[in-house]
């Protein structure tokens, strides 16, 4: 085992109404997911500006995941439909620029899906860990 092996840092944007509650439920149910997943609560998944995602990568995130209500269940009726289009386009663009597509993900997690939240985070963290450190969207000034 490498001593200084760096664990991946993951930023998860979770919508206030479904996914954040899903994360809560995962905690209440004592479901394990990596401690390196940093949750940022947003009012709706469509609050996530593409700049938030790039900033997260700049500041050292190795993967960014956006979690929202299932399509059709948005607290604001249609927010997550916009998220779906925007993120599809943004992630496709990042892939086009050669940034590993496994570093970005959108997942729909309801307030009842604590198990899905934990499973998603475990899976995502594993995939990101396999890629190693984020080199392609890093800002050298922010590296230690």
């Amino acid at each position: 085992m490498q001593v200084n092996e760096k664990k991946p840092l993951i930023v998860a944007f979770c919508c206030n109404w479904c996914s954040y509650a899903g994360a809560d439920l995962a905690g209440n149910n004592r479901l394990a997911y990596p401690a390196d997943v940093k949750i940022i609560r947003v009012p709706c998944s469509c609050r996530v500006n593409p700049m938030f995602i790039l900033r997260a990568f700049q500041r050292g995130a190795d993967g960014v995941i956006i979690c929202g209500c299932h399509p059709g269940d948005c607290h604001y009726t249609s927010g997550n439909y916009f998220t779906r289009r925007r993120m599809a386009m943004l992630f496709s663009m990042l892939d086009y620029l050669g940034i590993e597509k496994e570093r970005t993900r959108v997942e729909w997690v309801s307030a009842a899906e604590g198990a899905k939240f934990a499973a998603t985070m475990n899976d995502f963290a594993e995939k990101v860990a396999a890629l190693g450190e984020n080199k392609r969207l890093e800002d050298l000034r922010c590296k230690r």
Partner: protein
Amino acid sequence: MRKCTAANLDKLFAAIAENAALYLPVDDEKGTAQYKKWAEGTVMSNALNTAKSPKDFFFPQSEDLMKFKTQGKTIELTDIRDEKEDFVVFGVRACDVRSFDILDRVFLVDPRDSYYASRREKGVIVSLACSKPTETCFCSAFGIDATNPAGDVTAWKTEEGFFFKANTEKGEKLMASLEGLTEECTEEAVEAQKAKTAAILEKLPLADLDTDKFGGGKTAELFNDPAWAELSRSCLGCGTCTFVCPTCQCYDIKDFNTGREVIRYRCWDSCMYSEFTRMAHGNNRNSQLERFRQRFMHKLVYYPENNEGIFGCVGCGRCLAKCPISMNIVKVMKTVGGKKDE
């Protein structure tokens, strides 16, 4: 004068690169010349000039000044300046060599800019005389002789090879280190090339560009010229002209918070930008007309006023080639203050 045959050129570059980092114009994959660090196999560009000016070597687009961290009531400062190694810039044209003098008059006067000064001390400039000036060239309007550039060493490129003449102590030192690869020679070939180039320079479309209307003391006369409104009307307010310009020297100092400490850096700024020199009370130039006028008045009136009549433009023609709307200092010089023949 010393000569290096074309066959020996690579060896010469290798010899220079042994003691210092060597930068020279190299064509990129699209055929645009940019300064690159020399490595085995690097081929020098034949282009007249590089897309970006060599001012980057002494005054880079962005550079870190220092780092600071606060802990409780103490502030820890770290000097993180990039101590550049000794370097040689090869193939700088006459116009760009003059631009270093213009920058020196800004950065080396009191208070001396130690970041700039240190790079200036470490850099040796090998200039290269022009033999194929192009239509956008107008260096002669500012008294620059494209056939005989200044610099630590002046070089001429002919079919026979490169000819060198050292002008300064630094240049002599460099030439002394290259004695084995160069030979003493007469000035005949160089003189012939100079005469040939001079004949072309006379034929250039901008050869008769007149600077008489400009210079120190002309502020009152030119500032309220109605032509500024028309000239600046289509200006996009981008920074292309200022960033390709070898003499534009305005910068901004900004902080970047990395989350652990703050990096204070400086970067080029452009007087064409709406937030340029923004202060607590707001901006002092609120319209594009004022910003546009500032750039040209600075080069043609304010700078010569403070610097013994030397203009802040060297006639390299980069802004003529690069401006998105093809508005440039030549059009300004021909329009502001009335046409010469009117």
